[in-house]
């Protein structure tokens, strides 16, 4: 599995306009449906599922990273997108710090394995400090695309 198998150019948001949890999630889901990997009519359902998951505990896992995720029947495979909040967002992260990097995932209801594999790959890549630093410096979608492609080519393997 590669990052670009489930993170699709066209859905990246290098400079998120929102500065609250619901706004960020909505912005990323709106971006995701632009790629047609999730149907336009499913936006509010997916947003609700993601917010419901956040109520069980923030997906802000620390170190400025959040991985909002949920299952939703409108998708056929794991799909996701990347967003950056250069100013930092209060996402109620588990370490109490602001969040700068968002990897949002939506999985089909019965694909725990696909979800876990996508998370594994994202986490392995984010463990690489150089990747993280470059990621936070991205300001355009093209820069994000190039960085993820470099990661897929093994440039940031641990």
């Amino acid at each position, binding site marked *: 599995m590669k990052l670009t198998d489930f993170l699709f150019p066209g859905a990246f948001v290098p400079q998120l306009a929102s500065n609250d949890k619901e706004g960020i999630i909505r912005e990323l889901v709106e971006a995701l449906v632009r790629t047609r990997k999730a149907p336009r009519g499913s936006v509010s359902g997916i947003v609700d599922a993601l917010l419901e998951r956040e109520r069980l*505990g923030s997906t802000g*896992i*620390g170190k400025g990273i959040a*991985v909002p995720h949920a299952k939703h029947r409108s998708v056929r495979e794991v799909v996701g997108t990347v967003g950056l909040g250069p100013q930092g967002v209060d996402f109620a992260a588990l370490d109490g710090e602001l969040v700068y990097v968002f990897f949002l995932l939506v999985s089909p209801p019965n694909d*725990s394995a696909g*979800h*876990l594999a996508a998370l*594994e790959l994202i*986490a392995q890549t984010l463990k690489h400090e150089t990747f993280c630093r470059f990621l936070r410096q991205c300001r355009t979608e093209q820069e994000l695309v190039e960085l993820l492609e470099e990661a897929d080519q093994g440039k940031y393997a641990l």
Partner: protein
Amino acid sequence: MSRQQDEPQAECVSEVELRNPTGLHTRPAATFVDRASKFRAEVLLLKDGREANGKSILDLLALGAERGAHLTLITRGPDAAAAAEVLRGMLETGFDET
């Protein structure tokens, strides 16, 4: 197989099978880190030769541990034995997920 000693540099090594139905995804990882962080002992989780700091959610997610995964839990420090017991129990009982 577990070595347990109650001394400052105690180290416990346990082989554990992950029972969590959906694997070590974000919530169980967060729960594990929360509990692991209450101990002074260093906590490591190994899978297929890859090592994760048991007090880092990102590290645990990077293991991609699915249900039935065979993990090695290593705790090192003054409360290593207590940490091993609690954390092994969490991995083996499935974090109360149904």
